[in-house]
């Protein structure tokens, strides 16, 4: 399997505080990985290092076999950030169509409108294209963000806390969809602190709380979580997750 992301001995200090300690992690093509851990555990910081938003204090990050500093093909990476209140600024002039086209314009890539329209239909955004972002609801913006992240047919999709604010049915629908994308060849990485949300489609789990406590198969994690509550994961996790799915 081709390694898409490789993190080697990564350390991150912010304001004198160590956020990430000696992280070693690799994400292979076709993986559906959940990065879980408590609040403040460094999940989003790790994601930000990988996506180039934060500069690691030491260590190495490789994307598609290239050092992060030399990596240029950022259009191969889709990213759904944690929802920001800024989307709701009343003065935001961006229409949904412009929002979906944004990565293509910024990365100067040709947009496959056929595929984009398919995604727009799939996520039920067809009637909203001329709406301004400020007119959309919470859930509609979340869908628009996912379509935007997928608009350039990325090879890997990162989602940071994608289920926050979504009701149970929409959470399940989102994970089902991500599972479907994985089966079609997309590599998916979800950052979440809601461990009970771990979907049966998730193949691998990385448990992070400053250090990487676990990185392996989902079923192995479930077994370990039950036997080692000191990992910081509730032992209820297994029961809850399996009763839901």
């Amino acid at each position, binding site marked *: 399997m081709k390694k898409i992301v490789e993190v080697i001995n990564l350390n991150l200090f912010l304001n004198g505080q160590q956020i990430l300690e000696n992280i070693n992690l690799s994400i292979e093509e076709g993986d559906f990985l959940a990065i879980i851990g408590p609040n403040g555990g460094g999940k989003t910081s790790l994601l930000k290092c990988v*996506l180039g938003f934060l500069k690691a204090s030491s260590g190495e990050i490789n994307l598609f076999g290239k050092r992060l500093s030399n990596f*240029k093909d950022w259009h191969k*990476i889709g990213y759904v950030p944690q929802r920001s209140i800024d989307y709701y600024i009343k*003065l935001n002039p961006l229409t949904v169509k412009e929002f979906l086209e944004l990565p293509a314009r*910024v990365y100067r890539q040709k947009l496959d409108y056929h595929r984009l329209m398919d995604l727009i239909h799939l996520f039920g955004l067809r009637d909203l294209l001329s709406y301004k972002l400020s007119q959309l609801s919470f859930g509609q913006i979340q869908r628009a963000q996912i379509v935007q992240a997928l608009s350039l047919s990325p090879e890997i999709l990162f989602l940071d806390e994608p289920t926050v604010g979504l009701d149970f049915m929409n959470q399940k629908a989102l994970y089902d969809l991500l599972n479907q994308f994985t089966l079609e060849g997309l590599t998916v990485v979800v950052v979440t602190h809601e461990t009970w949300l771990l979907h049966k489609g998730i193949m691998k789990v990385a448990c992070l709380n400053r250090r990487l406590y676990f990185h392996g198969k989902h079923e192995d994690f479930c077994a370990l979580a039950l036997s080692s509550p000191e990992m910081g994961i509730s032992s209820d996790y297994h029961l809850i997750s399996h009763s839901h799915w």
Partner: protein
Amino acid sequence: MDEFLSYLALIKWGILAASFFALASSFLSPFIILNRNTLLPHVLTHLLLFPLLFLAILWPDGPQSLVLPLAVVLTLLLSLFIWFLKFKVYLFEDTSSSIVIHLSLALVLILAVKSSQYDYRLLTFLFGDVMLVDWQISFLSLVIFLATLLLVYKYKWKLFLSSLGWELPGLNLKVGNLYYLIFLTLQVVIGAKIVGVLLVSAFYVFCGILALKIAPNYRLVFLITPGLNFFSILGGMVLSYLMDIPFSAGTIIFMSLYLVPLFFIPRIRK
């Protein structure tokens, strides 16, 4: 009519310079508003006072063509101090601005008292005077307008992302932000010379607000804002002539009419 035409002849370079400044400012205005930073041009006008007085004392007979670029550089350095306080000392941006403004004004006061000098050129920056504007200032204003146009054409999306705090993987927004600050400083210095320190920042607020409210999409914001800003110059000129008031004040009064639809048309207000 003849009287109006002779008035026009008197202020033709001023009107031309003001028009180019209005167009240039309109291209940065949407980013400033979206960034909730509409007081930044106002801050820069305050910072500008110190370099102007400093240069007037140090170099009383200095030609405008050299004094203005030096004023830009010094104002930029002072404005970078705001960024330093914000990002390195972790203060809020308005707190940082307030500290630097007061420091700058204190230095202005000390310089003015200690040197016991009064420079008439300072007054032209404080209140602006379209009648004193010559072809050189108009040409400079045109150059800044064209350069701003290029900047916005090249960095339109990055400036937009940056103004809303949005991020896309691997995107470096720092260069665009630095250019944005440099161009804003350039505009404020030339704008202060034309319409005065006291009113220059209004060009970044009134028209941009209405454009962001009524534009059906992002692209049209960059057609509506320059149109409204340019129209304000014409309106201000007519008001100034009819009511015998300063041109810059007439322009701002005219601009304030743009807010009327926001009060009375709920569809726009939303």
